[in-house]
């Protein structure tokens, strides 16, 4: 087999070796194990699984190790692996009502059926560097068991309110058959809510966070309340065709957030609370909350009676803008492609610029404008 070997090939090989060396660092320091990453950098693992669209803590840890902790790169690695996997089918919708809850809070009711459960959170910690962690030490003190926590009855807040009509009823369970897979069908706009949620779930946490934040600051009028955030494990059920009934194929940890907003109502609908929804793998509260805010913001057209003539008033309401730019893997690739050679295009621009400058030189600058520069706005 003939392969053209030129300087580029050797350079690439060496670059890869250098990268591997940098990844390993000082060989005198023990190498990270995937177990360590999975156990001790679990937020990183959760983010990579969420945006990578694949629940596999082992592979996510591997991707993080391979990417030297660059999470966007790790997400990319996981995605490029995921895309080659066969699809067996679509699972039944998650029953988050039946979640084995490890954390559950509501900002709307002081107490509620099932109770508030803080769970593992740093929310109320003081953000002081804990120098004790710099030393390898003893395991943390065990948490004493709490009486009265019931795993079995933990109805969702929006469900409690929906019964009174104050919150919109949840959309009916959609048939599996009409669940479009965003990774197997190109996104068509306008997208339905299910498709939008898929895109947001894979969307970059930083981007969604900024957009969600912008809605709170007045770019998009939402006055959200965190009706409920819950975290825990849920069962995955798959309905195998030959069986005819769903079977549990595993359990995953998820974070779910429902934000509710006051809604003025339309001619057809009385005023009520409407909701935005967020879901992420593992413990990923920030992502789930940001996602819920953006989901609600993107529902503005549907909630304003479907007036097609209106244009979105804020960036977070602009479906095309949000969905086209939310994916970190796409954004990272395209921004970084600017590192690739552009000699040819640059040469074309250079040639054009020289010609324009030559033209400008030939006619002189008597009329007060130079080629390549903006014409003054108020030439008399």
């Amino acid at each position, binding site marked *: *087999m*003939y*392969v*053209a070997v*030129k*300087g*580029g*090939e050797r*350079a*690439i090989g060496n670059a890869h070796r250098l990268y591997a060396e940098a990844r390993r660092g000082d060989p005198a320091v023990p190498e990270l194990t995937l177990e360590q990453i999975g156990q001790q950098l679990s937020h990183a693992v959760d983010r990579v699984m969420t945006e990578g669209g694949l629940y596999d803590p082992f592979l996510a840890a591997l991707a993080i190790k391979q990417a030297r902790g660059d999470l966007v790169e790790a997400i*990319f690695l996981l*995605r*490029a692996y*995921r*895309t*080659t996997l*066969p699809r067996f089918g679509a699972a039944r919708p998650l029953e988050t009502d039946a979640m084995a809850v490890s954390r559950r809070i509501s900002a709307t009711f002081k107490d509620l059926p099932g109770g508030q459960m803080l769970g593992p959170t740093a929310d109320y910690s003081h953000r002081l560097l804990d120098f004790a962690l710099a030393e390898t030490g003893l395991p943390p003190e065990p948490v004493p068991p709490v009486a009265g926590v019931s795993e079995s009855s933990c109805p969702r807040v929006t469900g409690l309110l929906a019964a009174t009509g104050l919150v919109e009823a949840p959309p009916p369970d959609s048939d599996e058959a009409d669940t479009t897979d965003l*990774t*197997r*069908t*190109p*996104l*068509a*706009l*306008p997208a339905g809510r299910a498709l939008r949620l898929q895109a947001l779930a894979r969307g970059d946490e930083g981007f969604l966070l900024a957009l969600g934040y912008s809605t709170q600051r007045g770019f998009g009028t939402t006055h959200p309340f965190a009706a409920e955030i819950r975290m825990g494990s849920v069962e995955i059920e798959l309905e195998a065709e030959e069986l005819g009934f769903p079977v549990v194929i595993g359990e995953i940890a998820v974070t779910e957030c429902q934000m509710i907003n006051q809604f003025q109502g339309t001619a057809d609908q009385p005023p009520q609370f409407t909701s935005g929804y967020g879901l992420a793998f593992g413990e990923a509260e920030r992502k789930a909350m940001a996602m819920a805010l953006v989901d609600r913001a993107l529902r503005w057209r549907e909630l304003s009676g479907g007036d097609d003539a209106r244009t979105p008033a804020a960036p977070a309401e602009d479906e*095309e803008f949000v969905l*086209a730019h939310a994916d970190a*893997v*796409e954004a*990272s*690739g*395209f*921004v*970084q*492609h600017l590192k*690739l*050679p*552009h*000699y*040819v*295009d640059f*040469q*074309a*621009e*250079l*040639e*054009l610029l020289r*010609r*324009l400058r030559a*033209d400008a030189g030939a006619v002189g600058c008597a009329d007060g404008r130079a*080629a*390549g520069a903006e*014409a003054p706005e108020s030439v008399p």
Partner: protein
Amino acid sequence: MIDGLPASRTVGHGYTYAYLDEQTKRMIRRAVLKAVAVPGYQVPFASREMPMPYGWGTGGIQLTASLIGPSDVLKVIDQGADDTTNAVSIRQFFARTAHVQTTTRTAESTLIQTRHRIPEQPLRAGQIIVYQVPIPEPLRWLEPRETESRRLHALQDYGGMYVKLYEDIARYGRIATAYDYPVLVNGRYLMSPSPIPKFDNPKLDRMPALQLFGAGREKRIYAVPPHTRVESLAFDDHPFQVQKWDQTCVLCGAGDSYLDEVITDDAGGRWFVCSDTDHCTRRRDGGADGGDRRP
């Protein structure tokens, strides 16, 4: 190009032949057929995540992967050159995953994947050239919304594009687009030729080879079938013109090829070489000499 290839044939590490699974290849081939049937129309396709980043040729790679077969001879160029890093990387990828013969010779190749150039040597019938496309939508700079730009295509409402050309001439005395110069395909669809220099635009017109364009991140495939009319936009009194150089290639003396400029010192010293390395090599092998004045 896929004759005689068992669908189940796999290549190391559990990946399918040419990386993509056969279902995906079929999906891409269907999009290609549609693109060929409607020249210049951007066909949405379910672009896959590839093991290269978006913006680095994922669209072109998916096209190549779905077309390539063991009997193909593949040439990959970036900026006209076979030895630029990204071209090397893509060529290695297919050498490894598709066991395919690779070449730098334009004439020997059956399939050419390119970024930013069309080879100087005219392509012939039976060859396929695959372009890597970053932004497939020529109207994007006038109308950033895809929902609206697709409507403009549907209605063939291209007035805005000519407003831009008018504005260029009013401002600069000439059309100030040097690369990715928009073309009208078969008298119907406005098309981005990918960021090739406008020097290459005339080669698009009635080319005997099949031209395929892939945009992975934007999830679009489009095509110019062989011998299709491709016009570069212009005004009657400001006709389309390509770049010309006062210099010739210092290596082969070519005066009719696209030249790259190389800065040789910090005192403004420059020389020019063919951007198409195969073209340059062939000329030198044939005895041409640019009177190499390199220091």
